[in-house]
């Protein structure tokens, strides 16, 4: 199960498991962004390459207008994935 929605503070909260079957749900929301945004991953347990591809695609598109995604509260396992993928160099990331 994966959920993505806006929190009261305006940040986007992701929770559950962002796998290949759920990536369309992430893309539906992230694909509408046109300004810089913070993603809160505190309750995101898992991400696979399908989710990484959505994040990368969104970051590339936002960067064309000088905007960017910032990802906070990343757990150790997901941060390892980010590191192996080189995402720590192209996203601002804060770990838990």
């Amino acid at each position, binding site marked *: 199960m994966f959920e993505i929605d806006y929190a009261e503070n305006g940040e986007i909260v992701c929770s559950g*498991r962002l796998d*290949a*079957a759920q990536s369309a749900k992430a893309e539906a929301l992230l694909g509408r962004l046109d300004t810089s945004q913070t993603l809160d991953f505190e309750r995101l347990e*898992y991400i696979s*390459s399908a989710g*990484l591809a959505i994040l990368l695609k969104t970051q590339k598109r936002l*960067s064309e207008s000088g905007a960017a995604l910032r990802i906070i509260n990343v757990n150790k396992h997901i941060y390892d994935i980010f590191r192996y*993928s*080189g995402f720590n*160099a192209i996203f601002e990331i804060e770990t838990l």
Partner: protein
Amino acid sequence: MAGQSFKRSIDSVAGIYRFSEEIMAAADIDESVRFTVHLAIEELFVNLVSYNPGAEHDILIDVQVANNGVVVTIVDHDAAEFDVTKERPVDTGASLRERKPGGLGLHLIQHMVDTLEYDYRDGRSRIRFSKEPETRDV
């Protein structure tokens, strides 16, 4: 082999997670091993489905635990040949402008599992990987 067959569809991913998680949780497998095993199974399964979407056979997944580690075997009797052990470089150091979405799945698996084997003959592919807990120097 005491595995379970799954319909070759991306929608099978949730069921595959439940199947493998139940086995690893029952054996009290370390959380970091479980994360890597789930990731590798998903990436390999999605790869098999994506590269041969018109095939009909289900895909068999077997998860065995031993000595705190996990060995997974994935058998597809309707597979296109695709050696998952072959390195397909991803420039993870490229700038954002140069980065291309895609190709990260196999890259991650090859860096995160301990062993990865591939065998293909007569339309049947058999992929086996293992993952053990990391040992830390004291």
